[in-house]
Structure formats: C-alpha cells, structure tokens
C-alpha cells in the first residue's frame, strides 16, 4: 500500500490522466470572445465543448422594439466583416414581407456589393487561418492590403468602411457613380494577379499542406445532417449554393460555377475559398459590364426613407436567405401590421457551422483544433448576436 501511495502516477503501465483546459475566451486564436472547453489526453483531444454567449447583445429583441429600418444598422454588426451581405438578407426578408419590387439597377448594385464583400471575407479569413497556423502576419497583411482597396470603395459609396448601412428596403441608399464603377473594374483587373501571387505563397507550401491536409475531415453526410452551409459544406463536396439553389435577386443572370472540395479537410476549405473568389470575380466582371441605368429605389419606398416609423408591412411572415460568405444567412421576420416586427430571427451561419466543431476535433491534436476553428470561419458578432 505504501509503495502505491508514493509511486509516480501512471508509472509502470503508463496510463495518464486527462487534462481539462480552457482555450479562450481571451485568446487570439478563437477569433473573438469564444471559449473551447477541451479535455486532453496528452495532446489528443478527447472532448471539446464550445462555450459561447460572451458577445450576446440581444440583437433580436432590440430589433423587435425598433422600426424596420432601425435594425438595418444593427445587422451590420452581426458579421462585421460582411455588413453588405447582412444588409442584403434583411432587406430581402422585409421586401418579401411587404411585397416590394426592387429596380434592376439596385439589384445589380446589391450583387456587386455582396460579391465584393465575399472577396473581403474570404481573403481575410485565409489570412487569419494562416495566422492560426503560425505564419504570423505575412499572409494576413497581404490579404488586408487588398481588403483595404475594397473597403475604400465601400467608404466612398456608403460612407463607412465596415458598418455600411447601405441597403434600404426597395433599393439602395446611394447610387454608384461611373468613377466608382471604374475603380471596381480596376480592382477586378488587379485582383486575379494578387490571387495568383497569394496561391504561389500558400497553395503548394509544404508546411501548409502537411498541417492542413487530412485534418478536421468533415464527411458530407455529417455536414448535411448538421445543416452546415457555405464554403464548409461545399468543401465536403456537397453542391449547394443558395445563389444557384434559390436564384435570389438576379443571380440567375450571371454565369459562374460552384467550386467543390473532395475530402472536406481544412485544406479543401482553404482552397474552396480561393476558387470561390475567382468565381466572385467573374460575377463582378459581368455585373460591372452589364449594370443598367435607372432608379436605385422603388418608387413605393422612397417616402419611407424620410419616415421609417410609417413603414408598416402587412400582417404576415417572411423568411429570406442569402449566400453570405460564411454560409446561409437567413432572416425570419413576422409582422403584426405595426411599425415594429413582431418577431425577428437571424439564422446565423457562424453559429450553425460551429455545431460540428467537436466532431471535427476529436482525435486531433490541440494545435489542429485551432486551425479547424480557423477554417470554420466564425465571427462572434454573428455567433452570439
């Protein structure tokens, strides 16, 4: 007995205790205030519990106490990287609710903005993923250099770089001037060259391949059953893009392909995003070339710009979804005929894509958990709402 008390733990048969550690909430690799409660056996993950809610700020309840237009700026703050596509989804939901026709030019402007947003998001998420991998700040700064140029356009068009608050029900707030369109065209000319360079830097890099390939494999069945959407789902080889499946706005007019992955590992998720940027560039090129002249606001909605409180959609409910850069972003709005929505709900892709985090991480090493989280592409503003 005495012998057993004084012996080192696990000596002899080498069994070890599991160790429970918290990664986050104040940890740079968690992309915000998010905590992973990880149980480790050595360095291998036995269980992982995501703990969220640190950034919960009552978005849905706030929107239910506000005019419809009033929560438009709040949607900017959901996924603060992609305020334009957040606006897009919300505007579409309310337009569906109130049966508002959107002029063609406004549709084109929205699509241009949404695709520019996709470029911004994908390029920076790849940068952050590389940060998580340990390639400190070289890729992310190259990415941010390109992002900057697009954000300058947002500032010129909408007045703000990130919190754009640009879309309105029935159209957009400001028109695109020919100079801005020319600048967008200039970006489109240079962006493929940058992508080429970015790929030379990353795609064939042996360290990146070794760290990312066959790590965090997401099988297609699991992805579908967990209703994962966006680049994560497509990296697992499921052909599901809401731009194609729903044909919302005027997306059926544009020729583009949906890139798919094969294995669904971290590397596929990285590469699908690169390919998606190329497709976005195609859409942008067509949109900039074909953008028609005309109104940017539906005539019916112009008076409500001045008096948002008087905008009262008829009783009913509507759900509209867009292919946001992170996945299916849906807005569910119920109207009771007053100036405020009776119920307002956001289907946030970050949140739902994160539900499979434990399945991806079990059996992997701690360092892999960080890059798996990076490849899921979460933004805490949207996750916690």
């Amino acid at each position: 007995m005495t012998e057993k008390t004084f012996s080192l733990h696990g000596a002899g048969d080498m069994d070890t205790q599991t160790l429970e550690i918290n990664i986050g909430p104040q940890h740079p690799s968690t992309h915000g205030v998010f905590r992973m409660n990880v149980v480790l056996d050595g360095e291998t993950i036995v269980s992982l519990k995501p703990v969220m809610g640190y950034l919960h700020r009552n978005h849905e309840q706030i929107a239910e106490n506000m005019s419809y237009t009033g929560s438009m700026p709040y949607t900017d703050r959901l996924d603060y990287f992609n305020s334009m596509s957040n606006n897009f989804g919300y505007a579409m939901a309310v337009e569906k609710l109130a049966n508002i026709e959107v002029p063609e030019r406004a549709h084109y402007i929205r699509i241009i903005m949404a695709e520019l947003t996709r470029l911004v998001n994908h390029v920076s998420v790849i940068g952050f993923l590389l940060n998580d991998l340990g390639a400190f700040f070289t890729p992310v700064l190259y990415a941010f250099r390109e992002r900057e140029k697009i954000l300058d356009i947002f500032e010129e068009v909408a007045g703000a770089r990130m919190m754009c608050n640009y879309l309105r029900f029935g159209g957009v707030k400001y028109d695109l001037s020919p100079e801005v369109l020319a600048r967008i065209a200039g970006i489109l000319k240079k962006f493929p060259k940058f992508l080429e360079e970015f790929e030379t830097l990353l795609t064939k890099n042996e360290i990146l391949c070794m760290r990312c390939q066959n790590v965090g494999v997401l099988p297609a069945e699991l992805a579908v059953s967990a209703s994962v959407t966006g680049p994560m789902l497509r990296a697992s080889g499921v052909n599901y893009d809401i731009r194609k499946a729903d044909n919302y706005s005027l997306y059926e007019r544009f020729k583009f392909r949906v890139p798919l992955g094969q294995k669904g590992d971290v590397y596929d998720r990285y590469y699908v995003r690169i390919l998606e940027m190329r497709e976005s560039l195609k859409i942008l090129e067509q949109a900039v070339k074909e953008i028609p002249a005309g109104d940017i606001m539906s005539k019916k909605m112009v008076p409500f710009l001045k008096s948002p409180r008087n905008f009262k959609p008829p009783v009913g409910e509507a759900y509209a979804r867009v292919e946001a850069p992170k996945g299916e972003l849906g807005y569910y709005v119920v109207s009771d005929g007053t100036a405020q929505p009776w119920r307002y709900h956001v289907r946030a892709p970050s949140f739902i894509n994160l539900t499979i985090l434990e399945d991806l991480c079990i059996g992997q090493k701690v360092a892999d958990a960080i890059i798996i989280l990076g490849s899921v592409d979460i933004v805490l503003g949207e996750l916690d709402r």
Partner: protein
Amino acid sequence: MIFGTGILQGLMVTLKNFVTSYFKAPDEGGIFTVEYPEKRLPEKERFRNFPFLLYDKNPENLRCVACDICAKECPPKCIYIVREFDKDGKPLKRPAVFDIDFTVCMNCGICEEACPFDAIYMDHEFEIASADRHAKLLYHRDDLLKSNEYFHKIRPTDASAIDARRREAEEKKKAAEAAALAAQKAKEAAAAQAKPPEPPKPAAGA
C-alpha cells in the same frame, strides 16, 4: 516535385513584395499607408461619423425645430431633446436641450435621413477621444452647432444640393405667399368694387 519547392516559391513572393513595397507606386504594390497624425488621407465626402446641428449665418439661427423625429428614429436612442418655451409658456421652434451621447451613437446616419428640416448631418470629425466620457463625450446643443459653411467645406455636393432645394422651396413658399396675398387683395378689391353698386340695388327694386 522536390520537397521544399513550394516554400521557396513562397519565399520568393515575400521577397518580391518586400522589394516592391519600397520601389513601386502605391497602387502597383507599394506602401499606401500613411503616417497618420502627420499625414492624412483625403476624406471621402460621404464618410459619416457623428452628427452635428446645422445653423445658417449665426448660431442663434439653427435649423432644428425640436420636432423630436430624429430622437424617435435613432436606433440606439442616443439623442435627447427638450423644446424651448418662452416666458409665457408658449412652445418655441427651437431646442432648449439637444444632447447626443457619442458613446452610444453608432454612426448609422438615420437621423440625417429622417430629419425633415435639413438640420442634422453627419460630421467628418473623428478625433474626439477623451479620458472622461461623461464630461467630454456627451455633446450638448452648443457643442454640436456648426455653420452651413463648414457643411459646405466637408460635403460640397450634398450641401449645395440641399441649399438649392431649400432655396427653391423658399422661393416657392414666397411665390405662394405672394400669390395668396395677391389673391386676397384681388378679392378685397373685387369686394370693394362690388360693394358700391349694392346699396342702390334694393332702391332700384323698390
């Protein structure tokens, strides 16, 4: 492919970027950041930050009529307005208190959109950092006042469009007033003209 080629190619990219950042123009891959407090980038005209109150000519002549619409439309409810009353308790068309809490304001620009009197606009001023948020970041009416000339300076196209619209509306109003006055006068004149022959009428009938 030999192991390590990808890394070497990647390193070539970083080398190229390192060199071009010194020798190329900003839009060709050179550095386009500026050293902020000394150098500044030109401000975009639509750039919006915090609201300010507009006055014409002198600060007494502010456009705000304390209608409270912006305070009601403001999503985070950062505007607080109290109407001014004169000595007899008659409400005046100007605010006695107009406070904006800049710590709450989220720069959305809905106040500007909703204002029917062109009185509140989004400013370009962003250097408002302060160690005392209660004293320095709660802006009162007099801190918010800025002249129309300033508005013209920061947002020339918007300001001239708004001025043109206001002038037109004023002229229309004046024309309408003049027309109403003329109509009134004509009516009076017609009445005056019609009046003199009236008394003899019954006499003629009788």
